[in-house]
């Protein structure tokens, strides 16, 4: 289940002293009333050049004095000059991150965790199913795939949020819709639409069933609130998608990010090491405690 260990091989242990790298906030984008996207660059130019990651990996971002918090890297590994993260204001660190201004310096540790199985996805149809801020990890992968467009067959992006105002990456949603090599379906929950909303109205699983995509030669990557994932999976089963070809991410609380602090584990798996990306069929074998 963990492509992390196999790809990494038996390399020597990585020394760790928990010291974060310093990153500068280059720009801040308001996505919704409580979600902002931060574009970050390393203060140290060498780190900027050396830093590598893969779509799906996460980092621990810190506001000095508030603490660290875990978010996925929301930008594509193919865009090398910066990383981005999208942060919903929910707690102490995220509050303080939202108070930050462009030019401020924050801390970053990472990248940690495993990644989406890009190799396995090659040559396949891709179905991205996202809900709310769950589009953040997908966005990294979507841009990654779009930048390597030739390697994949059909791409369908199904994204939904509660209301039109809750949709994130609005500009990019438009860009994707305008491309002719990607099919997009955007939806909002009933009651969440505005008069000029031209997308679908309905819950993501419902819209998925209506669209009725073929499970043939398709990999599904689904990220979103647990309740959406749960019902989206019911729908996928109905549509004949085998759970072996469905991937999702878990977002348990973490402190260390490297398999030591003991709080993100689900059964004998560490979400920070064996995840955050999980094949759904593997997830079903674990204790349902996430």
């Amino acid at each position, binding site marked *: 289940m963990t492509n992390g260990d196999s790809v990494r091989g038996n390399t020597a242990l990585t020394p760790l*002293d*928990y010291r974060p790298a310093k990153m500068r906030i280059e720009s801040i984008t308001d996505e919704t009333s409580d979600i902002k996207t931060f574009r970050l660059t390393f203060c140290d130019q060498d780190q900027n050049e050396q830093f590598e990651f893969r779509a799906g990996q996460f980092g621990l971002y810190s506001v000095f*004095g508030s603490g660290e918090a875990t978010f996925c890297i929301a930008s594509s590994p193919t865009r090398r000059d910066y990383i981005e993260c999208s942060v919903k204001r929910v707690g102490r660190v995220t509050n303080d991150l939202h108070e930050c201004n462009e*030019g401020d310096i924050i801390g970053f540790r990472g990248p940690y965790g495993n990644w989406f199985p890009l190799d396995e996805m090659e040559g396949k149809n891709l179905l991205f199913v996202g809900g709310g801020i769950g589009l953040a990890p997908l966005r990294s992968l979507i841009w990654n795939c779009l930048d390597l467009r030739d390697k994949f067959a059909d791409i369908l992006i199904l994204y939904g949020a509660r209301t039109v105002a809750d949709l994130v990456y609005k500009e990019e949603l438009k860009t994707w819709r305008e491309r002719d090599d990607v099919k997009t379906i955007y939806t909002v929950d009933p009651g969440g639409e505005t008069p000029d909303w031209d997308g679908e109205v309905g819950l993501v699983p419902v819209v998925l069933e209506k669209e009725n995509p073929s499970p043939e030669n398709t990999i599904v990557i689904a990220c979103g609130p647990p309740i959406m994932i749960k019902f989206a999976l019911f729908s996928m089963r109905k549509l004949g998608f085998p759970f072996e070809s469905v991937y999702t991410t878990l977002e348990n609380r973490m402190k260390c990010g490297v398999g030591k602090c*003991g709080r993100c584990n689900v059964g004998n798996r560490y979400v920070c090491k064996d995840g955050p990306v999980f094949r759904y069929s593997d997830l079903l074998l674990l*204790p349902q*405690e996430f």
Partner: protein
Amino acid sequence: MSEQNLFEAPAGWLKSAVDALLSDGVEVVAPVGAEDGTVDLAPVSSSGAITLEYLNVNQPLKRLFFPQTEVLIEFERQDDGDIDVKSQSAPPEEEMVVFGCRPCDTAALDVLDKVFAWDYDDLRYRERRERATIVAFACTGPDPQCFCVPVGGSPHGSQGSDVLVFTRDDGSALLEVNTPKGEKLMERLGAVARPAQPDSGLPDVPDIHTGFDPEKIKLWLDDNFENEFWAGASLMCVGCGSCTYLCPTCHCFDIVDEGIWNRGERRRNWDSCSFGQFTAHASGHNPRPDQAARYRQRVMHKFKYFPERFGLVACVGCGRCLRACGVGQNLVSVLHDIEKT
């Protein structure tokens, strides 16, 4: 390892050894008694402070290598908006010799060593471990709460200690050297101990009366994540952290920032899976929403998840959790109940 690994030391050897080390500038940690009757490992400045009257030290050995609270980084905001980030300096380079911990506590170091260096190498932990030589004292009088044997240990277990000491009634001792570090220490101590006669038998191993079979327990755990048993077994647990904090193998931690407006520090603190907020997300969602889930996690982690991941049970049978529990929650009874089902 040289062939000679057994040494004979006369009564009073500990005093001579400690004094010799102290005069060499070595940090010596040994059992010291407090007013309330508890005994704990603490740095000593003379051999006179050491007590030998204890079953086990109150707080586990892990504190020396994985302290309850420690600074990871210090930071200070500069006038130009930059932030000065300093790693906390490494532990002192001087050697440390730890006397007096029991075989259960040294066995627990195996568990911690695995966690702190299975992928990422936790530098602070490793540096502290490397500078320490551990001279454990074999256990002579386990109490009814002790259960090291069923979890693979022994009152005379040498796992994790560099030197294991068997003390006789007259105060003389046999010292069993288990590692190159231990050999180095014996060389250093020179005259304090001399090679023992080949026929110097070790004392009899005291009996441990509590028994259960961890493999049988694991088999049950494999199939019973969802079971009403957990609700019943955890009902009396009030969710404090005393069992986890006194446990020599528990290693969960939290990372927090503390500071004032322009400067502060990031600390690593012990944390406990018994606490309600341990896994709570900022959104309010909590994967382990009740004490039953949290107690299950504790048992599962020690007897199923950890063995699956690292190949050994994350419990050394020191019995501290039984003794410390304020409401009488008894891990061994719970395991017996599991075995019976």
